[in-house]
C-alpha cells in the first residue's frame, strides 16, 4: 500500500508540474468554449440522438460549445497521459528492476488519469455554465469525464508505442479532430451514419447532447466509454508488461 501510495502521489505531483498542461487547462479550455459560443451563430440544427433514435432540434452555438469542450478535454487528457507514459518508460523499467510491482505503476497511471480527468471535466463544465444552462449539468460533466478517460487511455497506449512528443501530440490532435468533425452536423451532413458509433467520442458526445437538450440518459451509448477505456488499458497493460519485463530473476543461495 505504501508503494502504491508513494508512486501514485509522485505521479500526481508530476502531472501538477506539467506547466504546458496547466496552461492549457486554465487558458485553452475557456478560450475554446468562449470562441465556440461567440463565433457559432445560434441557428437551429438537427442532431441524430440515438438514445431515442430520433432527430433532436438543437441550437448550433450550444452544440459548438459541447464540441469545443469535448475537443479541449480530449486533447489535454490524451496529451497529458501520452507525455506522462512516454517520459516514464525508462524509469518505470528501472523501478520494476528495483522491485516495484508493475501493477502498482499501471494503477498509479490510471489514478493520475482519473484525477486529472475529473479536474479538467469539472472545470470545463463550470466554464460552460457561464454561457449556457444545459438540462442536466451533472450528466454533461459525466460525458466530459467519459471523453477524458477514453482519450487518456488512448494517450497511454500511444505513449507506450510512439517515440517522441511531437509524434504523440500530432496523433492525439488528428484522432480528436477526425473523431469530432465526423460527428458534427455543422460540418458533416452525413454525421448520422452508423459508422460514427465506432468513434471514441461517440458515447461522450451522445451523453453531452442528451444532457444539454433532453431529460433522458443515453445508457447504451454511455456503456461504450468503459469498453474504450478497458480496451486501451488492456493494450497498454500488455505493452507495458512486455517493455518492463525482467528477463530473469536472480537465483538466491
Amino acid at each position: 500500500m505504501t508503494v502504491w501510495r508513494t508512486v501514485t502521489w509522485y505521479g500526481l505531483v508530476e502531472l501538477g508540474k506539467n506547466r504546458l498542461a496547466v496552461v492549457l487547462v486554465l487558458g485553452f479550455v475557456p478560450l475554446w468554449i468562449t470562441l465556440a459560443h461567440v463565433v457559432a451563430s445560434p441557428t437551429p440544427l438537427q442532431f441524430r440522438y440515438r438514445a431515442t433514435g430520433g432527430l433532436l432540434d438543437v441550437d448550433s452555438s450550444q452544440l459548438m460549445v459541447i464540441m469545443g469542450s469535448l475537443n479541449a478535454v480530449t486533447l489535454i487528457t490524451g496529451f497529458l497521459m501520452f507525455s506522462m507514459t512516454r517520459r516514464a518508460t525508462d524509469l518505470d523499467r528501472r523501478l520494476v528492476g528495483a522491485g516495484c510491482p508493475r501493477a502498482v505503476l499501471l494503477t498509479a497511471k490510471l489514478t493520475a488519469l482519473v484525477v486529472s480527468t475529473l479536474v479538467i471535466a469539472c472545470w470545463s463544465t463550470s466554464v460552460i455554465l457561464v454561457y449556457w444552462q444545459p438540462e442536466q449539468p451533472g450528466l454533461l460533466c459525466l460525458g466530459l469525464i467519459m471523453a477524458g478517460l477514453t482519450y487518456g487511455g488512448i494517450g497511454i497506449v500511444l505513449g507506450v508505442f510512439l517515440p517522441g512528443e511531437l509524434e504523440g501530440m500530432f496523433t492525439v490532435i488528428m484522432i480528436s479532430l477526425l473523431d469530432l468533425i465526423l460527428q458534427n452536423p455543422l460540418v458533416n451532413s452525413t454525421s448520422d451514419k452508423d459508422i460514427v458509433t465506432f468513434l471514441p467520442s461517440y458515447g461522450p458526445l451522445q451523453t453531452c447532447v442528451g444532457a444539454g437538450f433532453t431529460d433522458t440518459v443515453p445508457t447504451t451509448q454511455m456503456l461504450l466509454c468503459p469498453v474504450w477505456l478497458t480496451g486501451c488499458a488492456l493494450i497498454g497493460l500488455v505493452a507495458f508488461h512486455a517493455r518492463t519485463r525482467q528477463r530473469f530473476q536472480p537465483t538466491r543461495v
Partner: protein
Amino acid sequence: MTGIAALRVLDVHKAFRARSVLRGVSFDVSPGELAGVVGENGAGKTTLLRILAGQLGPDRGEVELTGSLGYCPQHAVLNDALTVDQHLRLFQVSYRLPDLGRANELVERLGFADYRNIPVGVLSGGTRQKLNLVLALMHDPALLLLDEPYQGFDWDTYLHFWRIATELSEAGRAVLVVSHLAYDKERLDTLHRLDNGTLGESGGGIRNRSAVDSRR
C-alpha cells in the same frame, strides 16, 4: 573471495537482426571482486550490461546471479519533474528499505545534499549522474553493475566514486564497471576486454591497493 560467483555469465550471444553484437561471452565475478569490462565504442558493452541487468534477453547462453542487484545505467534514468528526495523515497519503497540511512550517507559523500529539494530536471549532468549512482547503491546490493558510472563527475567526485567502489568490494560486494577507457586498471582486480563480440582477459590480479591508496 568465496567459491560461489556473485555473477556467472555463460556463452552469451546477442544479435540485432544480422548484426552480431555478443558472440559467446563468458566470465564470472566473485563476491569481493572489483572487475572491469572495457571496449571500443559500439563494442557491445551496454548490450552486455543490459543483459546482465535482466533488461534484455540473450539469444543464447545463461546469466546466473546470486543475491540482490544494483544497476547504474550509462545515462541518468530519472524523472525530471521530481526532486532528489522524491527519487530516493520512490526507490526506498521499491527496494522496501526501512530507512534512507545508506542513501543519505551516499548523498553526503558525493556532495549533492544541497540539491535534495530541487527537481532533477534543472540539475547539472554531473549531479544527475551522482543521483543515478546513489539509486543503484542505496540498497547495498550483492552485485553492482555500473555502466560508465563517472561520466560528468569532477575529479573529487571521481575519487569519491572509486573509494566507495573499493569499500564495497572490501565489504564482500561484487562490482562490475564497464567503460570505454582502461584508465583505472590498477584499481581493478580483473579487467576484461570486449572486442569483436568476445571477451578476452586483459591482465589479471592488477589491483594495486597501495597505489590506489596513495591516490586517495
